């Protein structure tokens, strides 16, 4: 009797622990999203460096981004000249428009490009300044040490995300993911690294982000500057085709 009571207790404990681990993974993921999507909206200037991991050719681009909530985004290129003025408006799950200044024309583009690389960078349209995972992935804690959790994120059935699983290292201090490995066909296809996080007012913002395409041996490093938060961008009608055509300094 004593033995069976012990077994029952052990089972309950293990079950509770397993349940706690699964919950903790998703809870941690929720805190990651909360930590990184705190502001109602923000705008920033971004400097992007595109280069070969082996140290080959290097190119710098400057762009301006406006983001509100989880799914409203405007991106405009400021330099170099070949792409200056090109803008992208993304509202909702799949509605995307591209502004082409040479033709003075706004063109609807397919939401299916969201998994394609954004204008030759290593970020996909989906990955540009976006840290949303909970809708598409369920997380469990894979391992843990004194400083960080390592989460295993598995793609949910029906999700359109490109990567079947992610391995995310989350800093215990601030719930910011420092490294995310994105797996395709069982192998890491891309590695996202957040090397700098800045506290701006009441918000935590990753300001130095690097995305490496493992197969192409190429990376894009993005540094955010001139951040401004909670300016009521939606009220200013920033997420509109009219704004997309406007020139920015």
């Amino acid at each position, binding site marked *: 009797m004593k033995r069976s009571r012990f077994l029952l207790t052990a089972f309950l404990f293990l079950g509770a622990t397993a349940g706690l681990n699964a919950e903790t993974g998703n809870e941690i993921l929720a805190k990651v999203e909360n930590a990184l999507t705190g502001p109602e909206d923000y705008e920033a200037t971004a400097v992007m460096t*595109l280069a070969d991991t082996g140290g080959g*050719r290097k*190119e710098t*681009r400057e762009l301006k981004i406006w983001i509100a909530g989880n799914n409203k985004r405007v991106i405009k290129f400021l330099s*170099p*000249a*070949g*792409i*200056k003025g090109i803008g992208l408006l993304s*509202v*909702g799950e*799949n*509605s*995307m428009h591209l502004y082409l200044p040479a*033709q*003075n*024309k706004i*063109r*609807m*583009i*397919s*939401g*299916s*490009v969201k998994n*394609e*690389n954004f*204008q*030759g960078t290593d970020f996909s349209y989906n990955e540009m300044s976006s840290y949303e995972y909970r809708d598409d992935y369920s997380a469990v804690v894979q391992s843990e040490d004194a400083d960080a959790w390592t989460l295993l994120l598995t793609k949910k059935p029906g999700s359109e995300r490109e990567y079947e699983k992610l391995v995310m290292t989350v800093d215990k201090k601030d719930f910011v993911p420092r490294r995310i490995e994105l797996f395709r066909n069982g192998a890491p296809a891309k590695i996202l690294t957040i090397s700098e996080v800045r506290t701006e007012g009441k918000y935590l913002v990753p300001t130095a982000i690097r995305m490496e395409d493992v197969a*192409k041996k*190429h990376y894009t490093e993005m540094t955010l500057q001139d951040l401004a938060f909670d300016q009521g961008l939606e009220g200013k*009608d920033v*997420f*509109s*085709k*009219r704004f997309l055509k*406007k*020139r920015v*300094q």
Partner: protein
Amino acid sequence: MKKLLALFACLFILGGPVFSVDVGGTFTADGRVALEDGDFLFDQVYGKLTFEGQVSDHLLASTALSLRLFNNPIGGASHSNVLGVDELSLLYSVEPLEIGLDRAYFTYSDLFAPGLDLTVGKQRIPWGVSDTLNPTDLLNPLDFSDPFAFGKKSASLAALLTYTVPSDIFSIQLVYEPYSHPARLNALMLDAVRANMDSVLAVTGFNLLPDNSGGWTETADTPEFNIKNSLYAAKLSFSVPRLDISANFVSRLNDIPYVKSISFTVDDPMSPTSLEGKAYTFAYYREYECGLDAAWDLGFMVLRAEGALFFPEGDIETTTYLNAMPTATATAVSADPYVKYTVGFDSDLGAGFYLNVQYNHGFFNERGNDGPERLQDYLVVRLELSVLDDTLKFGLTGLGNVNNVYDAFGASDFFTYIVDNGGYMGGFDIEYKPSVSVSLKAGVMLFDGNNCSIARMKDNDLVFASFEYHF
């Protein structure tokens, strides 16, 4: 013109200390060689200088100057390589250079009320959601000066008033252009007109007489610079997620000329023994257009459709004169309404592949349901493959042309009709972009066909190369 350009440049330069002016530009070198005989079909250097300044929170000023250098002497009178001897001493004949005002406008946003924007000046107002062939894009005249730049249009002097409600759900555009500009034609088109005139002459039998005319006298009655020749237009646009739709109305002068009159002069109309004169005159007519367009994102592709219903202002006629007496009248463009339309889709297929397919009823310069300029049918397929982070792009273009599908289905033998009245263009190109501001492109275009628009190009199989740099 040069003074005007200099004035604009000075205004922007002097404006520099008051507000920042962005200066940029594009440089393009472009060469095309005919495979048949090695003729350069096109050899030019094109440059564009742009000046843009945000004068205040609400006011934007923009100007672009274009420079185009033709790399071969062109005679001022002959428009060919045959120059007058004196012309050899003139720079503009030996190294012809075009200077143009590509655009010059200002936009005042939130004029009187939030969402109300006014743009005034020389501007390009592109309407329509389709790629390349836009039947509703009628506010700027066609520019055929590069016969292979299909659909290129010039900016026009216009006032554009736009009101947009927040979140883009609805917007309205009103356009007024004081002058409805004619299109810029090219030598290929004019040669086709001349060949047509020679065939008219052959019908009269006057071509068998001794010709003392000294060649065709050619004139174009461009529209008077009068308010009655203005263009006015309106467009309503609606947007919901994944769907953009708009309806428009345009009243303008059709920018392609028609032959208004053909005149022959003989020594004796009753019993002619010699041809003393032959002439034709171009003119322009007003038309009204009602159009609809829509772009719909289906997730895996975007459907694009555009239709334009045209109403010519009455029957547009060509009158033939013999010794100044009208002898015959033919309909150049019937008053009957006709529809130009485009339906198609484009899709990112993944792995760097992009597909664009368009079916078009009516090319830029075609009009009417009947006659030599009637609407023909075109299927355009473009497949691109981008590799190496978009630094290298391979493109395949196929264009099929039938004159026209309606008659093909009515013919006793569909396929024979297609062969006798159809044509194609096949193209392959490679583009290398060592950086996003530099592009090197090369390719080949092959044409063949009979009795259709594309057949006119069949002696122009070519290879091309271009270099483009943005700064």
